[in-house]
């Protein structure tokens, strides 16, 4: 499922409108910044098998996030680098080599209709023959404007971000309101046993495979707000981690929230590589988030 996404739609969750927005916001921001767009500009979010794109005029593009082996007119192109495309060039994605969600940025403004301050749509996906006009944007690419020091420092940031998202099997969370309703065995399982993402994962949530978990007593909870990264324990003992298109409130046990800076790791985690959970405090999580955001300013 391929969509156009931006940072999402906030200010309407009290009437049940999900926030949406890019799943792996770090890769999306990276692709935007590399072509000189604002970090929160709308961008194409792609899942394998991904759409192909034909360019009607020359553009600067960048692909970040998952590596689906992008090929421009049968010649492979690299990720995280500005690429010049010409009129009639065709971009294909060949195979899901690394990660699950890829981003295609195009220098300029993608002309599409915003609803409630966001171009993220939770129901419509890209269709064959969809056309988008790209409106030229003032301002140079941050990477091309200064070829010496700035480029080097950006390059370093790109590697750091890539490593953070793709080279770690540890996903950190902060225990939630119902953490203490878990049995001791379940708590120990979460912290010591490996988990995998499952194929039952989409923009609403990722269902995890792992040890079966249970509450001390079967209990129903009154619904309250959930957010991206919320770990809900379903009655069948499975964990689901909520993603961008999540419902605004939920009544399952909220046992924790994955920290925002680690959420892209989970988004990109393929089902064949196990990962482990660990606990972190909010202050560290927030300072790591802010540190990472400095790469894009």
């Amino acid at each position, binding site marked *: 499922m391929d969509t156009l996404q931006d940072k999402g739609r906030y200010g309407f969750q009290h009437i049940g409108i999900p926030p949406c927005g890019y799943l792996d916001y770090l890769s999306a921001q990276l692709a935007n910044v590399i072509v000189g767009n604002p970090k929160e500009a709308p961008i194409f979010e792609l899942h394998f098998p991904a759409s192909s794109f034909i360019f009607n005029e020359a553009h600067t593009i960048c692909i970040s996030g998952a590596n689906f082996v992008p090929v421009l007119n049968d010649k492979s192109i690299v990720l995280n680098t500005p690429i010049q495309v010409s009129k009639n060039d065709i971009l294909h994605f060949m195979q899901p080599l690394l990660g699950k969600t890829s981003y295609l940025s195009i220098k300029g403004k993608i002309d599409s209709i915003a609803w409630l301050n966001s171009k993220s749509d939770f129901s419509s996906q890209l269709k064959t023959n969809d056309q988008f006009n790209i409106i030229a944007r003032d301002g140079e690419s941050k990477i091309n404007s200064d070829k010496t020091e700035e480029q080097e420092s950006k390059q370093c940031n790109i590697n750091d971000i890539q490593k953070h998202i793709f080279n770690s099997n540890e996903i950190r969370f902060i225990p939630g309101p119902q953490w203490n309703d878990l049995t001791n065995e379940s708590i120990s399982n979460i912290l010591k046993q490996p988990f995998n993402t499952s194929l039952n994962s989409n923009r609403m949530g990722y269902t995890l495979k792992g040890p079966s978990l249970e509450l001390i007593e079967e209990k129903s909870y009154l619904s309250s707000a959930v957010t991206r990264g*919320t770990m809900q324990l379903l009655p069948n003992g499975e964990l689901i981690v909520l993603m961008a298109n999540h419902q605004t*409130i939920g009544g399952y046990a909220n046992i924790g929230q994955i920290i925002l800076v680690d959420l892209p790791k989970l988004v990109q985690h393929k089902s064949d590589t196990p990962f482990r959970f660990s606990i972190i405090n909010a202050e560290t999580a927030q300072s790591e*988030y802010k540190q990472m955001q400095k790469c894009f300013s």
Partner: protein
Amino acid sequence: MIQYFKTMTKIFTNFNWKVQALGDHAIQFYLPEKMDSAMISEIKCFHDFIFSQQLKEIKDIIPSYHTITLIYDIELMHEPIEFANDLIEKYKSQREIDLPNKEVNKIIEVPVCYDENFGIDLINMSTKLNLSINEIIKIHTENIYQVYCLGFMPGFAYMGDVNIKIQTARHAQPRKNVSAGSVGIAGAQTGIYPMHSPGGWQIIGRTPFKIFDKDPAILSKFKMGDQIKFYSITRAEFESLNENEL
């Protein structure tokens, strides 16, 4: 008048708001966990107060049965718990001088056609509850319901409380498609599906009203704290009023 203010103050200070962090980008205010229509006006009041503050740190304010959750911008927020406790203090001091919200008493009347072609669970419910369909309709239209919260999908309002005589648990297996405008019951709650969607509630009728409109000036017909009264209409009246796509 002074006497009146004193009484109001006493009622409001009975609510003892507490705060907990929810991960690294949300904080939650909470009251004791119970479905209590008396708490709704307090939650609405606190929600409206926070909204009126126009705080740049806050991206969303999400009220529910016994909680209000703030989604915040990590880069703009410092000391979230302190921030939340300050909000409670500010609210309490302001709350004591404010008059109760007049809007709370507004009742929204909603027409429902309880035709069996729309109320596809009416016949089964009638057998199970040992009530005639007319009795179910009479009981459903008798109460004034409050909107406890919205969620599940844009504009879906959870309303209560349904008279115990017609309370019915939701279907074990949700239907793949419930029509827009369908009025359903799930235990003590009643609600309306704003758009075609999967759903497990017991469907007893359909409203011709559009419950959610993408027009930014309209959006959700209901908001938390609203009071709703249903009234029965005929199939012909439904057809002439219908605003939904069939």
